[in-house]
């Protein structure tokens, strides 16, 4: 169980430490590598690997959004793929009618995601723990079946997107490299935004509510509102990822909202380390590279993948980022170590505990 008594102190202390944490170096290294990726793949003449990197970035954004509510807010959403779908359909449906302008599609993606998050959040956030997991799944299934039933937009078959979003003079997304940089820029902005939010007073209330909601309410915070706001923000970020995904794949179908996709996003967050700023990027990269690498071996690759998943959960807690952090901590002897704060968050199902 988490230790609510030392919570806000340890959080502040962690924030102070984070600014000196060498983990930021790893992050800087990762982003530098990512910034050079197009040059690298261009030099190797392997455009497919640019696609792979683009996919990693887009899913990292979605994972960052899930990390915001899951890692910092303790809200395990099992329906996060719904926003990917909404964002992607916000490209596809206007394109179906010949409207390609990003100035129209992007606000639509963000607005529709926010609306969906707001409406479903009003209901879901009343529940806790596993009921929350299941109700978010239920809403994702509803929108999945809703799109399956809309014949006009292809139903189960999906829609092919002829042209990517037109960005005016800013960028030409038809170019793989420019789309890649659009995704990278989005990821940097999102990572920065999540960091700012988490470090703000808002983020402190959020984390307080995660660890002991009753106490935060007793302190006079309307935690429901905080959590709802956070939920809507996360929905919009995932909607942005969906918008990029729709542009990237040039194709959308309800399959994008499948519940297994939501499961994969959770896996990315946990693999990277829930509640850490760079975890989603590491998690998404590890996930996609692993999938690509294993599926090249044999059609039986899910076996290895499943075993790795089980072993990671059983023996390797805290994710990749936690490993970095542990490495960092051994080099510094100052400050009380607080391993529990680096572990994937327990859901606060039993307030009586």
């Amino acid at each position, binding site marked *: 169980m988490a230790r609510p008594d030392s919570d806000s102190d340890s959080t502040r202390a962690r924030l102070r430490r984070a600014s000196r944490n060498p983990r930021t170096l*790893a992050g800087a290294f990762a982003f530098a590598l990512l910034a050079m990726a197009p040059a690298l793949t261009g030099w190797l003449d392997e455009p497919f690997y640019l*696609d792979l990197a683009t996919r990693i970035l887009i899913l990292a954004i979605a994972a960052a959004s899930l990390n915001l509510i899951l890692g910092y807010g303790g809200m395990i959403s099992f329906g996060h793929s719904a926003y990917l779908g909404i964002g992607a359909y916000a490209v596809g449906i206007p394109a179906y009618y010949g409207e390609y302008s990003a100035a129209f599609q992007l606000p639509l993606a963000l607005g529709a995601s926010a609306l969906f998050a707001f409406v479903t959040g009003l209901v879901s956030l009343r529940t806790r723990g596993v009921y929350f997991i299941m109700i978010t799944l239920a809403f994702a299934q509803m929108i999945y079946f809703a799109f399956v039933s809309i014949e006009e937009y292809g139903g189960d*078959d999906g829609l*092919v997107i002829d042209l990517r979003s037109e960005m005016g003079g800013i960028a030409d997304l038809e170019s793989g490299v420019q789309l890649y940089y659009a995704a990278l820029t989005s990821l940097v902005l999102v990572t920065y935004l999540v960091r700012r939010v988490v470090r703000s007073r808002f983020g402190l209330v959020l984390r307080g509510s995660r660890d002991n909601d009753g106490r935060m309410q007793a302190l006079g915070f309307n935690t429901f509102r905080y959590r709802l706001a956070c939920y809507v923000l996360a929905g919009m970020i995932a909607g942005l990822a969906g918008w990029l995904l729709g542009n990237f794949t040039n194709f959308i179908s309800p399959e994008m909202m499948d519940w297994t996709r939501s499961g994969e996003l959770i896996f990315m967050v946990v693999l990277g380390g829930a509640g850490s700023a760079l975890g989603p990027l590491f998690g998404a990269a590890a996930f996609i590279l692993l999938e690509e690498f294993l599926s090249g071996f044999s059609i039986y690759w899910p076996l290895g993948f499943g075993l790795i998943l089980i072993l990671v959960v059983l023996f390797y807690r805290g994710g990749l980022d936690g*490993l970095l952090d542990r490495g960092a901590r051994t080099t510094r002897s100052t400050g009380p170590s607080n391993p529990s704060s680096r572990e994937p968050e327990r859901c606060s199902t039993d307030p009586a505990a």
Partner: protein
Amino acid sequence: MRNKLAIALGLTTCLLALAFHPAQGADKVKIGFVTTLTTGAGVIGRDMKDAVDLAVEHIGGKMAGLDVEILYEDDGFKPEIGKQKADKLVKSDDVDFVAGFIWSHVLLASRKSVLDAGKFLISSNAGPSQLAGKLCHENFFSTSWQNDQTPMAMGEVLNRKGVNKLYVMAPNYAAGKNMVAGVERTFAGEVVGKDMTKWGKDAQLDFSAELAKARASGADAIFVFYPGRAGSAFIKQYEQAGLVDEIPLYTVFTVDSISLPLLQKAGLKGVLGSLMTQFWAPDLDFPQNHKFVSAFREKHGRYPSFYAAQSYDTVFFIKSAVEAVDGNLEDMDGMRAAMAAADYPSVRGPYTYGNNHLPIQNFYLRQVAEDEAGNWTTRVVETVYTGHQDSYASECKM
């Protein structure tokens, strides 16, 4: 610090390991083949792969003196994955042809990636109406059929059998919709009920509610399209519901050489004698067909399915194009012209191409029967259509 470095290094190594693939030889005909190798539908992909491997064996692994390399990719029954694999084939593997495609929705999703890259796209099964009509393309060819054609032939058969009231069932995806549209186009009687059931990875396989509706509808016949594993599930339940003696069953792409051994093993005799339409049959009397069917049976101990037949044809079809240009794979125009001529020995016998590059071919009525060894297979009863062209060709501006 050391750990952090290890991880960073690990990730970099991973990226680099992916980047350095074995070097690619230039003097090769590279064919990407996208099909389904995993999930329950993987059995169809296996049949197609077996047929392609057999065809490559039969041509000695060469086309116009060049080595042939086939790259199989698994679409996992998902349009999105299929498109990713098509992207990989044209961008990373730099194939000359992308063929395969069981599912109409996977083909529709992958179309743009292949055609935009300036490669030939050859469907070895799926025939969605869009690609026959508005989305037709000079570099797209089919060695199968347009989805509507086979059920149109079945509609004709139903008329000849004097069926007045028909109950229709099909999965709710691109091909299912085409199949239903096809039978409705030619069937002269009344469609008294129609169910479009959930398809895809989580397809509906229990048809209790639909069969009860069919029984109550007072139909004279049931028409279904359930490819792959859904087909045998449907036939079992049709028998369990006691409809065999009440409402005769007419199928397209449901009872095939993949489902028949399963049904025989399960002892579901109700399927014997059931009727279907198809452009090909294992007993069609052409030398190429004899060669294909006997070699396939010898090698794999089972009858090839129509999926296999189309895939076998795909290899010979590509070979005819490569040989027409003497192995000069840069000569797209030359290869295109050769393909449009359909000048190769097809297992279905000679056929031609329409303006939309879909076959103009015969359709036969087939019946399930036992062969001399007691295996269940299908026999041709009669020819329903001779030289039939699909209904979307006029929408194709080519």
